């Protein structure tokens, strides 16, 4: 596989391109490929893709996209060009499973198959901001969910009651974050559980300062080093990738495309969604990815469902699972907040998609999360409950599509609900939803059983 040193060199010697020129070239290239490879949303009630030839064409479109464009380094404003052989070698040589954690908490994260029959890997929580006073309890609560295979860190704006401003304080805060993570998993009785560092900031010093086998990231832990939208990379992240590649941590990337941005609509997002994990793997050696597509209006909380988004997500993940070793995760980002009926229904919809399209499960979190308002352990447990039921009931693409269609009708005419803070709707001391939230959960569970899902 092309080395990170080669990548680093190309960020310094590649063709100079202004960012605006790159953005429009990106859009025009993808628009052309969508037409060339006839990538088109079939419309109607299509939530899960059943057209395998479309998946093949979409994958070819992705390969051609990466070969023509390369990756854009925003630090140096240069194009990192890749040839087809380099791309195919990287795809072939990427691992399809990652070993993480230690001792009895050692886990294998695996690539999944379309219509997966094995229970999925799970990261139940975080990637959402909390105040430091909740740090210990929050991590413990999520880590003690039995199916947790790794846990990701979280953001916060104050450390020891001071605003975090400037690199030295960011470094200090970064080390505190990982320290809390280590302590939290230990308190949950899972000292060897893999933790993934969620960067406070993307400066190289903030990314690297947490390497510390004694009280920071161990070699069996991970770090989030995401490629930016529109196939953009930057040198601080690459520097960190080089260091971590030698240290030993595994790496993750937020590799989903955002429809409505420079990739265009959902069809363009399919092309970017396929390319991005491959590019992230080449640029930073990321092997685990949040994959698929989102839509800018859903991420903004303006609309719950947009026609074609589920289908497009499905095409992306099916392509990645059939033609690459990408280890896909479904990051569930409901438009409604924690503690609400619509939040649980949105999670149910995407937890049904996940095993069908070959995705592991990742921390459900409100799209417009604010401090302490993003998630509770119940949503993670619900995500696992639904996807396990889908697997046990042997849903295939057709039956999953019908079931998701029923769920979609629940969102017709609905507006996202704001939701509650974690302490408003969840008892972190006793690891239980508060009575009102429990009632909401039981109501949604009953509804899904009536729709035909065998929940215990």
């Amino acid at each position: 596989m092309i080395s990170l040193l080669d990548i680093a060199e190309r960020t310094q010697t590649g063709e100079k391109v202004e960012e605006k020129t790159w953005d429009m070239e990106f859009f025009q290239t993808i628009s052309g490929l969508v037409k060339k490879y006839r990538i088109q949303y079939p419309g109607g009630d299509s939530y899960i893709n059943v057209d395998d030839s479309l998946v093949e064409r979409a994958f070819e479109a992705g390969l051609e996209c990466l070969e023509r464009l390369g990756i854009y380094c925003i630090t140096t404003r240069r194009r990192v060009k890749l040839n087809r052989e380099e791309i195919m070698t990287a795809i072939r040589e990427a691992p399809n499973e990652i070993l993480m954690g230690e001792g009895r908490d050692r886990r294998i994260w695996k690539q999944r198959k379309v219509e997966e029959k094995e229970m999925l890997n799970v990261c139940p929580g975080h990637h959402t901001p909390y105040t430091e006073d909740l740090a210990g309890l929050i991590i413990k609560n999520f880590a003690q969910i039995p199916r947790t295979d790794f846990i990701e860190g979280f953001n916060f704006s104050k450390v020891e009651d001071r605003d975090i401003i400037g690199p030295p304080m960011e470094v200090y805060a970064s080390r505190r974050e990982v320290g809390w993570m280590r302590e939290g998993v230990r308190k949950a009785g899972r000292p060897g559980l893999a933790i993934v560092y969620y960067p406070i900031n993307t400066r190289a010093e903030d990314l690297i300062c947490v390497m510390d086998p004694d009280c920071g990231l161990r070699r069996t832990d991970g770090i989030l080093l995401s490629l930016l939208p529109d196939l953009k990379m930057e040198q601080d992240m690459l520097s960190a990738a080089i260091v971590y590649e030698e240290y030993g941590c595994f790496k993750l990337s937020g590799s989903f495309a955002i429809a409505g941005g420079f990739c265009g609509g959902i069809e363009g997002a399919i092309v970017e969604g396929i390319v991005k994990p491959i590019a992230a793997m080449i640029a930073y050696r990321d092997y685990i990815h949040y994959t698929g597509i989102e839509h800018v209006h859903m991420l903004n909380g303006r609309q719950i469902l947009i026609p074609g988004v589920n289908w497009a997500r499905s095409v992306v993940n099916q392509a990645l699972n059939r033609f690459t070793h990408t280890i896909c995760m479904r990051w569930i980002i409901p438009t409604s907040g924690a503690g609400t009926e619509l939040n649980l229904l949105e999670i149910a919809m995407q937890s049904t998609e996940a095993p069908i399209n070959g995705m592991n499960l990742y921390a459900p979190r409100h799209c417009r999360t604010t401090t302490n308002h993003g998630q509770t352990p119940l949503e993670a447990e619900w995500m696992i409950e639904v996807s396990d039921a889908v697997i046990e009931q042997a849903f295939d693409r057709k039956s999953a599509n019908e079931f998701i269609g029923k769920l979609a009708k629940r969102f017709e005419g609905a507006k996202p609900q704001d939701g509650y803070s974690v302490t408003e709707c969840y008892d972190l001391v006793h690891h239980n939803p508060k009575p009102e939230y429990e009632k909401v959960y039981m109501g949604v569970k009953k509804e899904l059983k009536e729709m035909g899902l065998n929940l215990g």
Partner: protein
Amino acid sequence: MEYSKLTDKEKALLDSLRDAIVVIDTEAAKEAAQKIIDAQIDPRVALKHSIAEAAELVGAKFDCGELFLPHLVMVGDLMEEVGTILEKDIPPDQIQKKKVIVIATVQGDMHSIGKNIVSTMLRSSGFIIHDMGVDVPSTAIIQKAKEVKAEMIALSSLLTTTMPYQKEVIDDLVSMRLRDQFKVMVGGGPVTRQYAESIGADGYGKDAIEALEEAKRLLL
């Protein structure tokens, strides 16, 4: 002269300019702009009617998912070209000065898509935009705002840990005794209206549509 006082033929010309911009037909738009000049219609009416209406229609199409970010960029470029044609015959002292906005994602933050959408939406609605990109220090933002004589500074932050850099810009403006010179609007995923008020920002946009309304409220 007001639009309502124009002849039907003249109104049709203005409407054709608006429609050409909305479908991003560069040649048709430039042709329509020239025809408006040739017909001796007051170009200020065209700017007010055709361009402003086109901006609203394009904004609505983006909002309902018909158009995407690249289209907003193309519309912004087209509006500038058309504006150049229309403004050629307007005495400089009679050209309505466009408001200038400096926009950036704050220091330490690499997220750009929200900022890009706001930036292009503002530009296609008639503001002059200086987009400084991502990870921009406070001093650079303020320096740029002074240099281009901006009326507003718009700051985006998508990480909780970079929100304090929005406050830093405002605090720096105060300490440099420049606070009164610029309106400050903030936004981004974790940013709330309460936070905006707490740090002394003048405006807050939950998304691009709100950001546009706020910019109009604060500057027009």
